């Protein structure tokens, strides 16, 4: 099946070449980082995790969100998602690969990264994160390969894959739960130490992931003959609506608990996010952009009229995606470090090399998705002939 990746038109190859160029730039800067150390990032003694770990966290959510097409199709026999599941699974594979790369580039000693396997440490959540992420990758590679292969041959998928698909559903929940536990189990960081972190991660993931899937489906519908029809996209839009509502609700819960209790070490983090702390307002404009986008998204999504129209749905999905990206991909990780446990406010902003490496990793994800979607659609083209 993989040979289908090698057959494509000029725009297919042009796009791949562009992505390869972006990856090369990222790789160049990574080699710099490898030689100099993480000192070429904007990180510091007080803010020790930043853009890389935040992108990792955001993308774990995107990976987990595949479950939002898999679950209705396989558990509720919702047939309209039949054509969508493979897209969700491929998106999950690309997202997990990006997650692993973001973890890798964040390591101070990347050549020693296999120590995590050589000295397995179950009391560390990072060990479980590795187990759950790599397991999820294997599950999705296996499931997508077996189901697509069956589709190519025009036969029903073998029955043994069904329990594996069912297993992938709780597994998807687990990857984002474990990722939340990385943060929420640390007494040193009151901003993260909240029981609502894992539910919030899941809610935001199930909004941002399907929103991205809607946007990508509309894009490939324009570029190819693939058309899943109106119903699955509308149903995904309903899922995005519920999840985004839940996400905003949970954010408000956090704000109430943090601010009404008025414990200084809790309040300080929210101040840093929304009004600035000790004159440091790095994230303030971003966070308010996230708020405005969230409100816009909810208005457009909750109104059945605007949700039903494709143009406004696109705006809503973009708003959901970027609102959550700002919240998780910029705000969530850094704010845990500001102020530090000693009350220091240190500003952090990703440097050029840091951004170039990150964009390079996103380009790897885009490359993987392009190739996999290309294969899937080629297989379907065969069926149509």
């Amino acid at each position, binding site marked *: 099946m993989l040979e289908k990746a090698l057959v494509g038109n000029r725009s297919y190859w042009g796009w791949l070449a562009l992505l390869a160029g972006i990856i090369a730039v990222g790789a160049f800067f990574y080699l710099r980082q490898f030689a100099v150390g993480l000192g070429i990032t904007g990180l510091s003694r007080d803010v020790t995790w930043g853009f890389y770990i935040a992108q990792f966290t955001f993308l774990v959510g995107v990976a987990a969100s595949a479950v939002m097409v898999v679950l209705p199709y396989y558990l509720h026999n919702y047939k309209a998602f039949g054509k969508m599941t493979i897209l969700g699974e491929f998106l999950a594979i690309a997202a997990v690969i990006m997650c692993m790369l973001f973890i890798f580039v964040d390591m*101070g000693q*990347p050549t020693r990264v296999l*120590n995590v396997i050589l000295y397995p440490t179950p009391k560390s959540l990072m060990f479980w994160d590795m187990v759950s992420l790599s397991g999820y990758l294997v599950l999705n590679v296996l499931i997508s390969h077996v189901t697509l292969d069956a589709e190519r041959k025009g036969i029903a998928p073998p029955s043994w894959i069904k329990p594996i698909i069912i297993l992938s559903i709780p597994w998807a929940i687990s990857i984002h739960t474990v990722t939340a536990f990385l943060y929420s189990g640390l007494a040193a960081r009151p901003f993260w130490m909240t029981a609502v972190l894992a539910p919030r991660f899941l809610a935001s993931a199930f909004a941002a992931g399907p929103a991205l899937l809607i946007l990508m489906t509309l894009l490939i519908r324009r570029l190819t003959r693939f058309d899943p029809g109106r119903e699955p996209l509308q149903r995904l839009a309903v899922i995005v609506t519920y999840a985004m509502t839940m996400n905003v609700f949970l954010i408000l819960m956090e704000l109430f608990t943090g601010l009404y209790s008025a414990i200084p070490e809790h309040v300080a983090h929210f101040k840093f996010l929304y009004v600035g702390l000790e004159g440091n307002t790095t994230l303030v404009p971003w966070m308010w952009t996230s708020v405005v986008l969230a409100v816009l998204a909810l208005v457009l999504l909750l109104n059945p009229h605007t949700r039903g129209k494709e143009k406004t749905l696109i705006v809503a999905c973009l708003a959901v995606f970027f609102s959550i990206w700002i919240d998780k991909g910029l705000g969530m990780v850094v704010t845990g470090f500001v102020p530090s*446990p000693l009350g220091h406010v240190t500003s952090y902003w990703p440097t050029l090399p840091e951004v170039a490496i990150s964009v390079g990793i996103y380009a790897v994800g885009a490359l993987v998705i392009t190739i996999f979607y290309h294969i899937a659609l080629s297989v379907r083209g065969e069926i149509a002939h």
Partner: protein
Amino acid sequence: MKAGRRSFLKNAGLGALGLAASKAFPAGAEGAKAGGGPRWAMLIDTRKCLEEKECAKCAEACHEAHNVPTLPNPRHEVKWIWKENFREAFPDQEAEYFDEVLTSSKMLVFCNHCDKPPCTRVCPTQATWRRADGVVMMDWHRCIGCRYCVAACPYGSRSFNWIDPRPHLANVTPTYPTRTRGVVEKCTFCEERLPEHRSPACVEACEAKAMMFGDLADPTSEIREVLRTRFAVRRRPGLGTHPEIFYLV
């Protein structure tokens, strides 16, 4: 052969740290489990320490002995022991009406060598661990530089090597290893001096005799005697980490 190479590498790693924990405290390591070995702790007499406000002899001695670099960029700072504002060292203490001598001064801070260290719990490679004698140790040859321990430490005691520290050492102390970029480091209670029955370098360097190092497991030790008779506080005790650095106020 395989085993030989493996144990050689293992020993080389530990050897670079000075002495292996088990070798340093043959009796202590096992004895502590049975309640018999030492449990090291430190006591800081803040009033004595504050007599010389600008004094930094302890930090200088420590950083010199352990090849801690002086880095030009404060963001990349590596430090094992330093002074921190009272409010920042003790954020739980409502200090509004305390003696200004105390609240306007800087307190000596370093790794607390917690009895229940949150940093060792999160390490995915067991590159940091608590020894039976209470010293929270680091293996700079195993650390992958994920900085999870830095996130978990409620005292800001851990530093990461953002760049190669070696060009930033004025003098290299040959008896102690230097570090590479990309690993975490912190105070190790001078574990390399303990088997020689020498106090930590900071204690030795303190002319005001404001620092006391001792064995909490020994009820007759000097440190236990002071803790019995005078009121001492620890940093953020509410977190349940059981720090082993005590401050007389």
